[in-house]
């Protein structure tokens, strides 16, 4: 059973792309390439990467001077809101948002209504994806039935149906024994367990990071130890079982210390970090804008800087958005009453390119690895690659294009972005996923 290759991604069929992209800077960690090249796509596959390429018969020619052409991004952690939350997002809007952000694959979490905890439901979602999703999507299944933290799901059957991994994200696993059994049992499927590490006895009614800013605002705090204690516990259990653990949305320097220690010991653990935790701090909460409320919360600068360094050196394996749509009615309320979560698919690369690559904190090849190759490896899907013969899954990014984050540029049904209304420099202008053109800003 372990390592069985089953389909993990589904999307609509569409016309395969015939396209010649001329003169883009091709940045591809799977080949180590970073140079200006022409890329020819024929019937959805990369036919040639070279100089002065000529279009075949019907190939559209795209001049891409000054643009970056990169393997498309893979999001390990999004909340699709399907089923049950379609007023906030559906697969059509979700994949439109993903495409506009340069994503070629995204994986949904299981905390939907109903919960993705049985194979029939997962198969139904795969069918819906084949009818609605322009960008390939896949699904996590729950660790426990109904996310109740009591009884394990039928993981083997779920894996056979195509679950990418197992997670009760949204709520922490209740106790160490449950985590232990889940890790033991999931090993049979070759899929990992992804944990949302939070000690709820410490976060309680907290709505933001506990520190100087929460002291000033009189908001109940979520202390950093609520994360680091749980991360350490999960790592201890994973080490004991030598089992595949994935730590979701790491946000604290303290958790990174644990991660470093256990990775050094060879424990098979991976970790992700969100764009907002890499670029914003708890100072942003002084606006009391519900669009900067998420869990884990924005942390102080020292944590943010540690996360960036950890991503650059590979201690954190990949970027994941934790895309969490909420409709305006739910977010246009006082900060304390608003639900946690922000969307992220549409802005992730533009923000990270501007903030991290721009100031030299991380080099571009590394960032693309963390957003594309690394998450693909963790998900067990082929790494998007700009290599002859590969299925076309890439995006084109214009670093000079400025755009305003809003309803018409996000494409999501929800606008709860931490950057709503802000002008960003650098924009994904073309995305090809599974061999189809799924986004063209010029079209």
């Amino acid at each position: 059973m372990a390592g069985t290759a089953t389909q993990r991604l589904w999307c609509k069929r569409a016309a395969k792309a015939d396209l010649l992209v001329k003169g883009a800077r091709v940045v591809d960690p799977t080949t180590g390439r970073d140079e200006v090249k022409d890329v020819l796509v024929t019937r959805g596959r990369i036919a040639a990467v070279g100089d002065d390429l000529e279009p075949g018969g019907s190939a559209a020619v795209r001049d891409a001077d000054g643009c970056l052409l990169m393997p498309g991004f893979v999001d390990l952690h999004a909340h699709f809101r399907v089923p049950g939350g379609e007023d906030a997002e559906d697969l059509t809007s979700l994949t439109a948002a993903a495409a506009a952000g340069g994503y070629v694959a995204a994986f949904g979490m299981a905390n939907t209504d109903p919960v993705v905890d049985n194979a029939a439901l997962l198969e139904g979602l795969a069918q819906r994806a084949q009818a609605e999703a322009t960008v390939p999507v896949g699904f996590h299944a729950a660790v426990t039935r109904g996310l109740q933290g009591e009884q394990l799901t039928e993981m083997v059957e779920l894996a056979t149906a195509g679950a990418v991994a197992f997670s009760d994200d949204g709520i922490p696993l209740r106790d160490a024994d449950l985590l232990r059994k889940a890790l033991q049992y999931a090993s049979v499927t070759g899929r990992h367990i992804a944990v949302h590490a939070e000690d709820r006895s410490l976060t309680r009614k907290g709505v933001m990071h506990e520190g100087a800013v929460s002291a000033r605002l009189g908001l109940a705090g979520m202390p950093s130890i609520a994360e680091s204690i749980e991360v350490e516990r999960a790592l201890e259990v994973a080490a004991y079982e030598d089992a595949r653990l994935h730590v979701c949305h790491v946000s604290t320097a303290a958790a990174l210390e644990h991660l470093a220690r256990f990775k050094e010991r060879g424990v098979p653990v991976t970790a992700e970090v969100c764009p907002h935790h890499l670029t914003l701090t708890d100072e942003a909460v002084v606006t009391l804008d519900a669009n900067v409320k998420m869990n884990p919360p924005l942390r102080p600068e020292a944590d943010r800087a540690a996360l960036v360094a950890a991503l650059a050196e590979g201690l954190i394996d990949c970027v994941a958005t934790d895309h969490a749509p909420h409709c305006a009615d739910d977010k246009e309320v006082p900060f304390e009453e608003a639900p946690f979560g922000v969307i992220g698919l549409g802005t992730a690369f533009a923000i990270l390119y501007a903030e991290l690559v721009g100031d030299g904190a991380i080099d571009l090849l590394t960032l693309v690895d963390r957003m594309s190759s690394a998450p693909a490896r963790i998900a067990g899907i082929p790494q998007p690659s700009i290599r002859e013969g590969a299925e076309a899954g890439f995006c084109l990014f214009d670093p000079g294009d400025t755009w305003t984050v809003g309803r018409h540029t996000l494409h999501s049904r929800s606008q709860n972005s931490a950057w709503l209304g802000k002008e960003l420099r650098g924009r994904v202008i073309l995305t090809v996923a599974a061999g189809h053109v799924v986004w063209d800003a010029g079209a």
Partner: protein
Amino acid sequence: MTKRDLLSMDDLTRTDVDLILDTAESFLPILQRDIKKVPTLRGRTIVSYFHEASTRTSSSFDLAAKRLSADTIALKKSGSAIEKGESLKDTILTLSAYSPDIIVMRHPSAGACRLAARYTPASVINAGDGKYQHPTQCLLDLFTLRQTFGRDLDGMKISIVGDILHSRVARSDIAGFQMMGMHVTLVGPPTMMPRDIESLGVAVEHDLSHLRTADVIYLLRIQRERMQAGANFLPSLREYARVWGIDRSRVRPGQKVMHPGPINRGVEISGEIADDPDTLILEQVEAGLSTRMAILYRTIVGYSDSASEEA
């Protein structure tokens, strides 16, 4: 003229604060008259919207508005649409249909008044939001201090004692006291002291050993719900009173004691100190009226000096 809200002490400059306090002082003679009413805000409408119980603050605002001849409407939580789950946005849009000049608002969530201000052309005055701000309490406290010690409060020492964690009064007062150049020390049990509160430039102490060095002791109300099982902020009121309660033995003669009310006799303050002439609690209540008259007046008429001469 763009509308002027009063949402947080951060919205006010030192000049604004001095102007409000001067205006409050100019209203004092009115309150001594037989007929304690002036026509200053005749024809103006002031809506009060209290989404949290408060007899004292709402009465103080109501009387202040009436002294200035404004028309008032009150919307309270019980029996209104708020209880039926109407959103803050819809409530504010509905209230705005009365074309009020001012909405005086209290809400259990931080930032609710700022959010409300976005949805209405009326000026919003924050009468307490969550554990964040209570700027009119701060202004009346500053007025009380000024009436007691004179205009120059620079260099004075004030110790705020009690549940800082859950206190919007403390958060507004810290800003206001510091604006006047006062040195602020926070005193209370560690469970009720926000982590990293020192970043505001205050000193933090956990016992009363240095309390006598303060010019003013500012006590906060201890709320019974902090003792609920599982909350564990305090083991008991009795223990709080023993360690942090203020009685004669802990107050130096002449040391002034303040409290925003309502007081818990025998918990944070002994009956003897509550009734002592050096205690400023009743002065604070009086100051509340003239200060809130000044705030309503300034919000409508404006914050320029020329306007003050018309008063």
